[in-house]
């Protein structure tokens, strides 16, 4: 209880002090701060059966986790504040109106082993979880001056972090025994999850960052290749296959997120659109004293954020990445020069490859990336999981990125390439602009059709550099 009160005071500091403040390891300073490093942010109307009146938000952190990295594996940081931000007013100006905070607490259960997890872990209450993490969730409505904090679910169970997937011997039937039981229901129909999952992002990062050195055959999609999942380009490599991330997910009723507390049905309703992003914070001072654990003091200061995919990766220049990570979406017009005339479009696509692209300033890109918040039109019904098109609105499926939020499986790289090439501008939805892609068209393993939607984490036992991270879709969970 004392801990709860202390945490509460810390959370209140955020308000009173006014310190408000997809990227895998993007920003030089974040390379030194992996537990606070956010990778991707998702926001979408739930496509789980019977739950379309809810919005799901999730954030991934600490990308590129090797599933076999025992005995310690990975954990959330107790000294990082993980936050979902929702903007529902003032024309979506990039300032938060609702915040949902996650704060973690680690308990090292008494033991005399060198392990973090001992014996067969077949339930989330197994005492063999020696490194036991719990968390509290604080929901804050900034316009109505109230907040509520939860440390237990509706059944009185502590909100605990799912343990790692070690393998069939230590963590048998992982998803049934450990994954789904780590989904907790809070009052008001809210559901939360925190723990390791497969990285849902897929992308031929190796080829792309070898200066667009895409692998044969051509990474240009056409005809049926655009309409179906699976990779028609077997040489393309998913650089994220076989790796896990740390996921935080929350599902809330739509009525909790709109400014008027209603479910909008008319696209012209000023409450039809909301937007979200994720951010992480550390306290301004860290005190290290002898052999004691470090202690955080002072205001929470933002260290990372993520709204739309590809912003800091593909549009913000290296010298400004850390500053961008620490800045507020509401001030994103200061970065507009890099988005209004992106080098990728004008110099690379047009200059080098001869594509016809729209002239600067690119108002189509500015409307998505400034401020850098993921917008969702709540009047667009969710597309059933089996019918979703990886290209979202570019493939005729409006419930995907960038207009219907961002779902787990949206192929944001191909959508992004094509959008930068100008397909959202009249006269530029032409070949080859509307055929660009990296050749990786699906995740290495299937997603879930239910909360938290990310696939279960890859198992340490099954993982290997040869089979687990070769990018050819070998299931290892």
């Amino acid at each position, binding site marked *: 209880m004392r801990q709860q009160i202390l945490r*509460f005071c810390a959370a209140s500091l955020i308000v009173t002090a006014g310190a408000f403040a997809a990227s895998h390891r993007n920003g030089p300073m974040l390379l030194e701060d992996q537990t606070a490093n956010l990778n991707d942010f998702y926001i979408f109307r739930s496509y789980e059966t019977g739950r379309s009146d809810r919005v799901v938000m999730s954030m991934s952190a600490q990308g590129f986790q090797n599933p076999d990295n025992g005995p310690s594996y990975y954990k959330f940081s107790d000294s990082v504040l993980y936050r979902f931000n929702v903007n529902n007013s003032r024309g979506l100006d990039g300032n938060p109106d609702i915040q949902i905070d996650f704060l973690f607490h680690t308990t090292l259960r008494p033991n005399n082993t060198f392990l973090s997890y001992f014996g067969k872990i077949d339930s989330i209450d197994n005492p063999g979880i020696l490194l036991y993490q719990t968390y509290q969730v604080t929901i804050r409505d900034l316009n109505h001056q109230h907040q509520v904090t939860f440390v237990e679910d509706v059944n009185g169970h502590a909100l605990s972090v799912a343990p790692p997937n070690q393998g069939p011997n230590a963590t048998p039937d992982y998803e049934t025994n450990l994954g789904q039981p780590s989904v907790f229901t809070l009052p008001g129909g809210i559901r939360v999850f925190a723990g390791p999952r497969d990285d849902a992002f897929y992308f031929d990062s190796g080829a792309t960052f070898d*200066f667009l050195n895409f692998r044969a055959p051509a990474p240009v999609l056409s005809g049926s290749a655009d309409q179906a999942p699976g990779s028609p380009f077997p040489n393309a490599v998913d650089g994220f296959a076989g790796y896990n991330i740390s996921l935080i997910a929350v599902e809330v009723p739509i009525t909790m997120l709109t400014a008027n507390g209603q479910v909008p049905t008319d696209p012209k309703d000023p409450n039809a659109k909301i937007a979200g992003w994720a951010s992480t914070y550390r306290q301004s001072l860290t005190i290290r004293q002898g052999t004691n654990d470090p202690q955080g003091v002072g205001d929470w200061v933002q260290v990372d954020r993520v709204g739309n995919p590809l912003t800091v990766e593909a549009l913000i220049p290296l010298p400004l990445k850390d500053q961008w990570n620490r800045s507020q979406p509401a001030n994103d017009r200061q970065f507009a020069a890099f988005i209004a005339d992106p080098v990728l479009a004008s110099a690379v696509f047009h200059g080098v490859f001869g594509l016809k692209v729209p002239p600067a300033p690119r108002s189509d890109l500015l409307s998505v990336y400034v401020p850098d918040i993921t917008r969702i039109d709540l009047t667009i019904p969710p597309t059933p999981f089996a019918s979703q098109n990886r290209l979202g609105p570019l493939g005729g499926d409006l419930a995907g990125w960038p207009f219907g939020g961002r779902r787990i499986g949206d192929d944001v790289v191909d959508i992004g390439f094509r959008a930068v090439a100008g397909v959202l501008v009249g006269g530029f939805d032409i070949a080859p602009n509307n055929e660009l892609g990296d050749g990786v068209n699906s995740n290495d393993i299937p997603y879930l059709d239910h909360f938290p939607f990310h696939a279960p984490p890859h198992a340490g036992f099954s993982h290997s550099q040869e089979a687990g991270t070769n990018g050819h879709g070998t299931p290892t969970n």
Partner: protein
Amino acid sequence: MKTAILFFSFSSLVAFAQDPATARMLAPQLNVAERNNACYELRGVHSPEAIAALASALQSPEVRSCAARNLREAGAVQELKSAIASADPEIRAAAARELGALGKPELIEPLARAARDPNLLVATNALEGLAQYQDPSVLPALLSLVESGGPVAAMALSRAEQFEDPAVLTVARKVMATRDVPLRLTALREIGDHGDTSDLPVLRELAAKAERVAPAGRGFGLVPPLDLSRAAQNAIRQIEGRLPSRSL
């Protein structure tokens, strides 16, 4: 089940709610949403009190973007010109961006100076301010930035191209001698769009000798290696495409 509900400092907030928007916008006790709500109430308000409060609000990152836009919409040139001399680069950047949106000829000079600011954020925002001018009177300032080189040179050349002035081609040819790859790529685009046969020898030399980034033996499909030779080949094709067939 443990649930805690906290109504934080509600009585003081009620008191703040009775304050004018200028006071609420600047009140550090209020949260970021409340302060921006107040700032939005001031949009379109041109009173001296409002403008003074908005100028003060530039100091606060929580409401800076809203305040800067309000100042511009109120035509508060002097307040924004003062802000462009601020010690805080983010304030200088915001002021430069909004001054550019006013499109006043007398502001070209201070914006051009700000575009040479050693802080990249300030320089690019000043350039973005200059890029908002639709009048060709801004062209000399843009071309001067191109010739000076530096981080905003390629952006300045890209924005100068919209005026389709022969001076842009002249400068593009000059900067082909630099080692700044983005600038040379932009210059090649301008030469391809507006160059003539006199450019072909230089382009052909570049197309022939540039090294390909990719190792041999790997396919690229539509997307070939990223290098200047490819851009030079594009420019050659564009120029040759404009020639009468007997000239080829």
